[in-house]
């Protein structure tokens, strides 16, 4: 955790034990935002919608985990999905590139539209879809191959064989993921030898190499130390200029720092969505307020 941040729990804890009870109660219910909201946490109003879902229900077997979710994700911005564990935010994220297809017994109703096209339509090639909608996972997952081979994997499975072109893509992707300077002299070394933070940036670079429009991130920094987290956040912040990013996070400070739009999920329902700054300072729903002030979750 970055030291400049307020921990939401600090707001709730009494500063001294002799503090009068009334004041404690007062502090407890005051609807203050426990997080610093940067000026970037807002959205230009004219941003076009890149991805949207319409009345999306999702089931694992007979267990419904998403209920009637309709969300618009604006292009070239970061949308943060927040909510307590098990609220369906990761499942929602995984519906956007049909990652749930590889799990047995899942089904959905409703629509997921990428630039107006239903990605679950029968004529959609899921392999091509995932090239356009890339994904970065919570646990960094470098392949047990060299750094170069990791980045070149996506273009190679897409059929690119030209070595010079592959080298160009590897360099550009690593530069964009702010990893090039650290690894340029050891591209042939195993990616497993990189540090945790470097591995995660490698995974981001690997996703960039397939040249996606949309990048989905499932708690990309939750397993990293504070310094690596800061670097990954800086990177996400930078990437939003060129990509549409959807990020699941448990960390509300992170959501506030990197996102322009925030969606709050609770028990499979999209409770509230709005411009990050608005949602954190002036939530409409009581549940949202309780969650962002650290009352539960």
């Amino acid at each position, binding site marked *: 955790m970055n030291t400049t941040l307020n921990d939401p729990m600090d707001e709730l804890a009494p500063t001294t034990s002799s503090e009068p009870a009334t004041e404690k109660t007062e502090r407890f219910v005051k609807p203050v935002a426990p997080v610093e909201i940067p000026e970037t946490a807002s959205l230009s109003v004219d941003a076009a919608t890149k991805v949207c879902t319409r009345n999306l229900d999702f089931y694992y077997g007979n267990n419904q985990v998403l209920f009637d979710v309709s969300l618009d994700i604006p292009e070239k911005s970061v949308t943060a999905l927040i909510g307590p564990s098990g609220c369906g935010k990761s499942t929602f994220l995984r519906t956007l590139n049909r990652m749930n297809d590889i799990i*047995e017994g899942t089904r959905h109703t409703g629509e997921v539209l990428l630039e107006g096209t239903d990605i679950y339509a029968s004529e959609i090639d899921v392999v091509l879809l995932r*090239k356009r909608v*890339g994904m970065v*996972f919570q646990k960094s997952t470098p*392949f047990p191959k060299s750094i170069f081979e990791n980045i070149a994997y996506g273009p*190679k499975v897409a059929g690119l064989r030209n070595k010079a072109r592959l080298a160009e893509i590897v360099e550009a992707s690593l530069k964009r993921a702010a990893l090039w300077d650290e690894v340029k002299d050891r591209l042939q070394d195993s990616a497993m030898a990189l540090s945790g933070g470097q591995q995660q940036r490698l995974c981001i670079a690997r996703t960039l190499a*397939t040249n996606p429009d949309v990048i989905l991130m499932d708690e990309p920094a939750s397993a990293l130390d504070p310094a690596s987290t800061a670097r990954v956040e800086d990177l996400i912040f930078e990437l939003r200029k060129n990509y549409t990013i959807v990020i699941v996070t448990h960390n509300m400070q992170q959501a506030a720092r990197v996102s322009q739009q925030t969606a709050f999920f609770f028990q499979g329902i999209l409770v509230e969505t709005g411009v990050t700054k608005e949602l954190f300072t002036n939530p409409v729903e009581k549940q949202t307020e309780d969650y962002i002030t650290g009352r539960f979750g």
Partner: protein
Amino acid sequence: MKLSSDNPFKKETELATDTQIEAVIAPTGSLQRSASLVRVKEGFIRTILLACAGVSILTTIGIIFVLFSNAVYDVAPDRIGADGKVKPNEAFFQIVSPVEFLTETRWTPQYAEKHFGILPLVCGTLMISGIAAMIGIPVGLCSAVYLSEYATPRARSIIKPVLEVLAGIPTVVYGYFALVFVTPYLLKPLIQDVLGFDVGVFNAASAGIVVGIMIIPMISSLSEDVLRSVPRSLREAAYALGSTRFDVSTKVVVPAALSGIIASFLLAIARAIGETMAVTIAAGQTAVVTGNPFESVATMTSYIVNVSLGDTELGSIEEKSIYAVGLTLFMMTLAMNIISQFVLRRFREVYN
């Protein structure tokens, strides 16, 4: 403890529970060991279990001792014959030089002119193991990839037990199958009638084919285990980069599990080298150094069977030769096992 005053029943039950808990967790008696029947019983169980674990170790040591004392150096005291002369007990390599054993190309212990070159037997063994590997490895690996990456749970639940049945068929049945089906109905029509090569009644190819089928379940089940142990996150990452199922299988999962897969190959080849009954039935008894898989060959195992079942005189050089062959066989399979253990151990380090 919070007691509700308006519910006397609840109060009582809670109190009762509390008393019970006290009774259970209250410290009791001394900590001294009781010199009772319990300790004797524990010691007895321990001894029985240790003895069971020791059986296989002692057997291995015993086998190695017998092989060495008959093949390398006989430790038994010299015998005095009926004529009063000292008859030394000699092991195989005290009579035949190891150099001849390893370099001579004829193996004729049962003929008048005896030659003891292991090469024809090693050649026969390697040819059959090679054919078996060419069949068993690709088919076994492909079934493992199918079971681990492609099969639906329902298909898996049918195919896996069937493969296990294949592993349970007695090897003598495989040998018979090679002799009465593979050679006359597969090799003769295809190789002899179409391609024009002579196919013997006994031949290395038919034995190799059935041994190959025999090792398929072993390769597929061991390889499937290592394929499935590749973390799911790695597969998801590959899918998220726009991979087809085939890309994920061949470019990510199989390479990640490669050392485990190779270990399964080595174990299966060790099994093929040691395979006896099918080979004895199907491959014949001609100890020759040959590259033709359609003629009869002898393997190390089939030679041992042949001598053991024949009317070989105890203490004769033929009888001793099987220990030297057995030792060679043991060394080969042991080497394969050690290499595969080594390869497997390196695999485990990657994901732990």
